């Protein structure tokens, strides 16, 4: 579980997982961001793959949201994956570069509580959940066998 969360939330690219997306638009975005802008002569690629449940002997798919949710704490527990900031805090998690201020906004507490001023708490589980939802992400364990590639589009 830790490696799965690290893969999504911390960008650990050396991992047993391959990130896939259910969104063509997001796949195009990833395709654009190679080591140089793609051109008609040197395009980037978007792959459409088809993995059926019975093909699972070779490729195992994981829905990261489901996997993470299975390991979340009970609501009775003191520790929780929940944030304690404003609702706009999630904007910062979804888009931390452009909504950085939301991540730094000081947390409000009930009258009488005087804790050390701080930003809302953000646990890796919540970060991974939000990123996975944002990117319509599905994880493949190990690789994608060639026969499961349905289509390859050249994009630029």
């Amino acid at each position: 579980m830790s490696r799965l969360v690290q893969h999504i939330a911390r960008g650990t690219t050396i991992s047993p997982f391959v990130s896939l997306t259910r969104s063509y638009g997001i796949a195009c975005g990833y395709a654009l961001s190679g080591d140089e802008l793609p051109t008609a002569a040197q395009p980037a690629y978007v792959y459409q793959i088809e993995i059926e449940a019975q093909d699972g002997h070779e490729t195992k798919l994981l829905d990261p949201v489901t996997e993470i949710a299975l390991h979340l704490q009970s609501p009775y527990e003191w520790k929780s994956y929940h944030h304690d900031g404003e609702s706009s805090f999630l904007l910062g998690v979804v888009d931390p570069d452009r909504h950085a201020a939301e991540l730094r906004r000081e947390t409000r507490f009930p009258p009488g509580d005087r804790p050390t001023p701080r930003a809302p708490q953000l646990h890796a589980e919540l970060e991974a959940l939000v990123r996975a939802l944002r990117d319509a992400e599905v994880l493949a364990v190990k690789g994608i066998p060639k026969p499961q590639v349905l289509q390859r589009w050249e994009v630029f």
Partner: protein
Amino acid sequence: MATAKAKTPPIKLNYTAREVPLPDLIDGKITFVAATIFDEPPLPFAIVNYKRSGKLQKKGLRMDLDKRIFLDHFDDAAFQQTLDTTAHTVAAAIGQARRAPAKTAASSAGD
């Protein structure tokens, strides 16, 4: 089981990108020169162009701006360590430029 289909013509994507300079970002033998960022759609990635030992590299470094990391890994441990330690600073500089309104689109594709 799926089978590969015939090759399709390249698809021209609608996007707007621009290059932002990265002045004074030098770490040892690496100079970060400029970054290509995407305004539309607003992708959380950048392509960072850099000089290594004074020589401009043809291929840029892929950066995840949200995670503030370079996505590429190199066998040269010293080089990799420099990238790991400077990624946050480079991402912050790019982020600042990204949040500023685009004056002109340096490059764009699409219709």
